[in-house]
């Protein structure tokens, strides 16, 4: 969650500062780590994205509970 948020805030910054190469390399680093973290998450809890963006190897886990508004943190 925190990783994705960092990527998002950098994303917004880069939209208005597209030539800031330091921010760009930070973003790419972040994105890489995020992809890794998502893979781990998904192998434990099921797919994060719909429409074919996340694999669903053994069963169609997209329909599983809890949905985000039901998750107890």
């Amino acid at each position: 969650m925190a990783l994705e948020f960092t990527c998002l805030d950098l994303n917004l910054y880069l939209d208005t500062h597209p030539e800031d190469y330091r921010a760009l390399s930070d973003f790419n680093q972040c994105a890489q780590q995020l992809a890794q973290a998502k893979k781990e998450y998904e192998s434990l809890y099921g797919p994060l994205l719909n429409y074919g963006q996340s694999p669903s190897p053994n069963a169609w886990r997209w329909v599983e509970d809890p949905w985000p508004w039901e998750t107890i943190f």
Partner: protein
Amino acid sequence: MSPEEIKAQGMGYYRLARAYVPWQQYTQRWGLEEGLKKGTIFPELYRPYPPKPDRGEENV
């Protein structure tokens, strides 16, 4: 106002009837957990609420 005149004025030139927001420079950013908790990864954009009262003054 010709383009040369505008260029010559540089950053110090402000027009009437227009709003200006200072341009953010990327200096540093917080780590993952802290960024999420605070709501932004950029410390210069962080403005906590309620603002801390000054010492010795009652919070209105």
